[in-house]
């Protein structure tokens, strides 16, 4: 597994912002996730080569952060906030709707690879709870009906 030359170029531009190359490890992992879809062991090795640190250092960092996928997520990754303000306004119902509609438990992916589901902690949109992210996009003021419809729409895409 290797990065394309243009990605390595992009990385070098980012690395030049820091006095120490290791500091560009989080950005490098973001690039790896964008290019390879998730952070496999092979991706970690490619990141280590590019950054110039050991694979163990990459593993140490990658495993600390929840947003780096260690396995391939679905095409639509549903991240439902389950923290306090969303809880007060019905996040349990949202979780239940997703779990029933897609037959998923937290951390699972549908057989067709289309959806993955992960309850997450406060997304800093508490006044518009319950909320979730679908990939990098926020969906707020969710209702069970609205989420059901959203999933139906995404299924058709």
């Amino acid at each position: 597994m290797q990065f394309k030359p243009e990605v390595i170029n992009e990385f070098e531009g980012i690395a030049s912002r820091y006095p120490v190359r290791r500091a560009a490890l989080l950005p490098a992992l973001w690039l790896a996730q964008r290019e390879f879809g998730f952070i496999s062991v092979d991706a970690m090795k490619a990141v280590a080569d590019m950054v110039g640190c050991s694979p163990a250092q990459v593993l140490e960092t990658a495993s600390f952060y929840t947003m780096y996928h260690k396995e391939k997520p679905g095409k639509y990754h549903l991240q439902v906030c389950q923290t306090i303000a969303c809880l007060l306004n019905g996040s349990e119902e949202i979780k239940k709707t997703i779990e029933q509609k897609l037959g998923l438990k937290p951390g699972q992916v549908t057989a067709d690879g289309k959806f993955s589901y992960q309850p997450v902690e406060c997304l800093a949109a508490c006044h518009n709870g319950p909320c979730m992210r679908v990939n990098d996009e926020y969906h707020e003021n969710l209702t069970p009906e609205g989420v059901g419809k959203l999933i139906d729409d995404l299924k058709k895409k």
Partner: protein
Amino acid sequence: MQTVEPQLTKRFGLKDSYTLKVFLATGGYSSLKNLFAKKPAEVIEEVKASGLKGRGGAGFPCGMKWSFVPQNTGKPIYLAVNADEGEPGTFTDNYMMMNDPHLLLEGIICACYAINSHMAYIYVRGEFYAQIQRLNGAIDEARKAGYLGKNIQGSGFDLEVYVHRGAGAYICGEETGLLESLEGKPGKPRIKPPFPAVVGLFGCPTIINNVKTLSSVPWIIANGAAAYAAIGTKESTGTHVFGLSGHVNQTGYWEMPFGLPMMEFINHYGKGVKGGALKAVIPGGSSCPILTAKECEDLTLTYESMRDHKTMFGTGCAIVMNEHVDMVKVLKNLTHFYSHESCGQCTPCREGTAWEDRLMKKLLDGEATTQELSMMLEIADNMEGKTICVLSAALAMPVRSFIQKFRADFEKYCKPSISAVPAEIS
């Protein structure tokens, strides 16, 4: 209640409020003239005199923090902007960056000039993808127009600003966890001292400030410390973007001077409690001790009133709960959050947060007695003041305040304990 012009949110609602064009047309970057006319030490004095306190949660006086930076180490000095916004119930930095990213950049220029830094990193939580794009767009515009880069507006002052994307970890909002994360490592907080102002990012002097703290600075530089200190109360000067979530009819955020009574905030701005009478308020993010409805009666939105009520101002975003809320379920939510987010390096935190969470599960399962409640309080006492950072205390405080103030909710789940057996039998 004073009415004052908005400082932080005045562009919110304007079309294309985030662009340089609109920013400049509405007085943006106008503080720089005053800024560069002063010596850095004078800027620090001005900010000290304004009374501005850190808005990230700890409320540390901003100017004083800046004055801790040693100027004789020969090392570069850094500014790290805390845009990690992870404290449950807190959501206003989000909108500061979306609606007025240039205001933050203006504040960054002021701060960097004051502390003699030529490099700032904005550490933004990984989930804020749109906010990161906004910031990067604003940085590009500012650089092209000579507000960033070399010799800013002919002042001779150079500054580069970069965005650093986090990747999902509440602990990276803790200032030294943030620095570790900026260095490419797991965000495990550092032992202090040395404080980051002396030994921070890459071993160099570093100031860490919250988004709203920095966004408050340009107004102070433009209008003077005395004008700022005249707003709010003696101890809580200026304005803040206050937030409301949970059980109110109108959730949201509003900029206003410090000093509004909490009940007026809830009833006037929040249009009243939704779904029943008021039961409790967590005043400034989930780490602050919870308050009963009664305690809220004479509470004001100020640092000093929060302190008098034995809670904290925190981030100024309140979570409101109505009478039907089961405090046991809410506390279980928090024990889960903190045990999930503990970085794991200190035993009292790693084990303490996990034990509290397990005991809460036992209670919810109907397997606990009042002995477990006592145990939870005892564990809480052993979690505070014994760890590298205050994440551990940030759970101990809710545990203690929830159980002490809403004990009846908790006892409902308890099965009879040995001590509840009638005296004649025992």
